[in-house]
């Protein structure tokens, strides 16, 4: 009987212990779920999962050597919570003494750290004292951010703000374009956005009360995608030199605008496309709207006598002439009905060879040569084969296709005028491309600005095609280049255009500009050429529109010589071994 009592007692003790423990738990549960529910709920709001934007980096735009033209960088916005703005205590570095920092002091410190004016910061913070968000400074650099963080002001925060910077400034600025607040605004930034553009991703994670991420809680809902690197054919340093030289001369001549285009003959890659006026993408507001974009692509003009080389090549290819074909060029040629064409200088009849016509740039002479290929369609087709009347393969933003009128619209003057570059329009790039064709043995290569778009995984897209089309025979092209060499060696600008040790082929052009009432007194002067003439590697076209101080193409010669010399130095062209062949200019 003792045992039974003992057993019962033990059982009772065990049951009581269990009951005690269970009731402890119940009390705790009730406490959490019922009594403190509201408080804990509000506390948990801050512990909920945090949504985070993972930024994809916009791709860089680089030149042919990899130098960065457009760079994606981190900038930071300093924000504040006006609701919490108040004086605070700052512990000194020794850890003991505390100083009270007033709001005005804090604002002054922020101003020195970020460079934003005190008045602006104060206005932004006091505009809506109940709001939880206001900007203190936008787009500050890492240095400034570190300075702000050091201040330790409890009511300021920082937000990452990916940004775009252009370390080379105006160099290739017209080509690269720029980014505005809403995204890419201009140039390659816009047209190549599918290459360099990035997409942001999103991820969520949970974090503890002290802000540390709870391990294993990160869930990526969308992957961020970085943009690819856009590689251009432009050479950065050479482009700078071209822009500098162009700008100097355009200002000297008082011209409205100027362009320099340098194309590699073998593959049609653009080494430099210089415009003046041009834009610094870091400071777009500093220039008028007309300076944005690239006039080399978008401004068509009547090219003038630089077109004669193309005419000569076409006639040579058709077998209509040879370099020594003889004509007698009058000072003025009557076409009947009161229409006539005349040369730039008045003269009596001169017995020119075809080379002489080119060297002396005789309009009447070229018209006589063109008579030997009477069919208008054939002559127009040659122009199209050289790439005129259609956009280049670059398809740059706002590019113009120029215009060669249909043959049914050719009046007797236009019939000849198109052969010496009036009555039809081209852009500077089209002209450079035509000269590239002449230098490349008559094979027209597609003009290329983009070398490719390289992605992070190594794949390269947008690789340009290497397919050329034949415009004229190799013999015709080579003969034309030889004739153009004589422009340099026997023409009126021999001293200005000769580079010792090198053979250069060139053609000048002084084009009249239509002013709505026939042609006015303005001119567009240019020189187009190839170097080295024995085996051309680069085609160079320099143009100035409506110069004021000097209106003849001789004004272009100094710039042409400078840029050609630079081509030789930059791209290491060896001097020529043999002298230029001399073709007779008169008979």
């Amino acid at each position, binding site marked *: 009987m003792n045992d039974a009592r003992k057993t019962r007692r033990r059982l009772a003790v065990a049951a009581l212990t269990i009951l005690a423990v269970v009731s402890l738990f119940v009390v705790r549960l009730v406490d959490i779920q019922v009594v403190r529910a509201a408080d804990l709920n509000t506390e948990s709001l801050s512990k909920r999962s945090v949504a985070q934007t993972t930024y994809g980096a916009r791709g860089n735009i680089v030149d042919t050597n990899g130098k960065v033209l457009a760079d994606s960088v981190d900038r930071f916005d300093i924000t504040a919570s006006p609701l919490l703005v108040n004086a605070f205590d700052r512990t000194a570095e020794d850890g003991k003494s505390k100083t009270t920092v007033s709001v005005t002091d804090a604002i002054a410190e922020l101003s020195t750290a970020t460079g934003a004016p005190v008045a602006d910061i104060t206005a932004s913070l006091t505009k809506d004292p109940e709001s939880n968000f206001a900007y203190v400074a936008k787009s500050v650099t890492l240095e400034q951010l570190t300075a702000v963080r050091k201040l330790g002001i409890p009511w300021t925060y920082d937000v990452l703000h990916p940004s775009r910077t252009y370390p080379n*400034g105006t160099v290739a600025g017209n080509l690269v374009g720029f980014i505005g607040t809403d995204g890419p605004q201009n140039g390659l930034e816009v047209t190549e956005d599918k290459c360099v553009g990035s997409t942001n991703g999103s991820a969520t994670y949970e974090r503890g009360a002290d802000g540390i991420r709870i391990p294993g809680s990160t869930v990526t809902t969308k992957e961020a995608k970085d943009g690819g690197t856009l590689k251009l054919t432009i050479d950065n340093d050479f482009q700078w030199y071209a822009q500098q030289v162009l700008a100097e001369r355009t200002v000297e001549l008082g011209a409205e605008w100027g362009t320099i285009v340098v194309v590699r003959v073998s593959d049609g890659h653009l080494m430099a496309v210089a415009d003046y006026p041009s834009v610094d993408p870091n400071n777009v507001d500093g220039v008028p709207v007309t300076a944005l974009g690239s006039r080399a692509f978008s401004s068509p003009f009547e090219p003038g006598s630089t077109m004669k080389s193309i005419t000569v090549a076409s006639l040579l290819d058709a077998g209509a002439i040879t370099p020594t074909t003889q004509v007698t060029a009058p000072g003025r040629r009557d076409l009947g009905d009161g229409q006539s064409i005349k040369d730039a200088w008045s003269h009596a009849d001169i017995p020119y060879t075809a080379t002489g016509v080119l060297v002396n740039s005789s309009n009447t002479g070229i018209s006589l040569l063109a008579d030997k290929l009477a069919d208008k369609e054939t002559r127009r087709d040659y122009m199209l084969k050289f790439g005129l009347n259609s956009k280049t393969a670059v398809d740059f933003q706002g590019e113009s296709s120029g215009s060669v009128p249909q043959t049914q619209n050719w009046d007797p003057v236009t019939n000849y005028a198109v052969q010496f570059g009036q009555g039809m329009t081209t852009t500077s790039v089209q002209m450079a491309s035509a000269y590239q064709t002449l230098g490349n043995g008559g094979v027209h290569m597609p003009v290329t600005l983009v070398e490719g778009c390289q992605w992070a995984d190594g794949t390269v897209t947008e690789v340009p095609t290497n397919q050329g089309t034949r415009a004229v025979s190799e013999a015709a092209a080579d003969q034309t280049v030889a004739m153009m060499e004589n422009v340099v060696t026997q023409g009126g600008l021999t001293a200005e255009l000769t580079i010792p040790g090198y053979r250069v082929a060139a053609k000048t052009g002084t084009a009249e500009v239509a002013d709505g009432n026939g042609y006015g007194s303005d001119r567009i002067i240019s020189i187009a050429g190839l170097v080295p003439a024995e085996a051309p590697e680069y085609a160079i076209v320099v143009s100035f529109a409506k110069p004021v101080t000097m209106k003849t193409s001789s004004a272009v010669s100094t710039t042409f010589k400078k840029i050609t010399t630079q081509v030789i130095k930059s791209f290491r062209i060896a001097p020529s071994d043999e002298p230029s062949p001399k073709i007779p200019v008169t008979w």
Partner: protein
Amino acid sequence: MSSNLAFATPLRSPREDTRSTPHIEIVSSREQRKARPRVVYAVVTVAGLFALFLAQLLLSIVVSDGAYRIAGLQTEQRDLGRQQQALSEQLDLLSSPQNLAAQAESLGMVLSNTSPVFLRLADGAIVGSASAAGEGQAVIGATGSLVPNALLGDIPLVEQAAIAGGTAPGTADTAVGGSFVDPVAGAPDAGATPGSVTSNPMALPSPVTR
């Protein structure tokens, strides 16, 4: 077994009672011994449970600690990455052609664009007609830089005087390339500049690579 009958137990002297009551035990049989539950199993089970709880506790401590370390390292990585980016940004800016040209001009370098001349490293031959660069052929010129770079701001220009005491850069040290290589004015015959390397005037200083 107890009973209600009262007994009179004869008094005996304790000394005489040497016979003790026999100690009787119930001996458990083997089956009974086997049927009894063993303590060791219970101890093992409970100990195992405790060990599991303990292990889980330790693991979660370590994992949480790892989370703090990860957070710290990620912040460090991010900050270092930002620093590197800021520095390479600065580098790109300093290597922009506007800056290089301005610095070159400030050093007194001139640009000779009258005739390009090359120095062929293979045999030291001068290719082209060499002539001394003129004094006034400035890199940028009187008009100043017309290709502005808004980011350049106030980068200080190197003073020519500051490097006057150092060695004149050997022409063969830098590769012939880039836009602004000075034409070599009849290379080895130019007057001995302080600190120049060759003792044999016809020998070229060999390119130094780093």
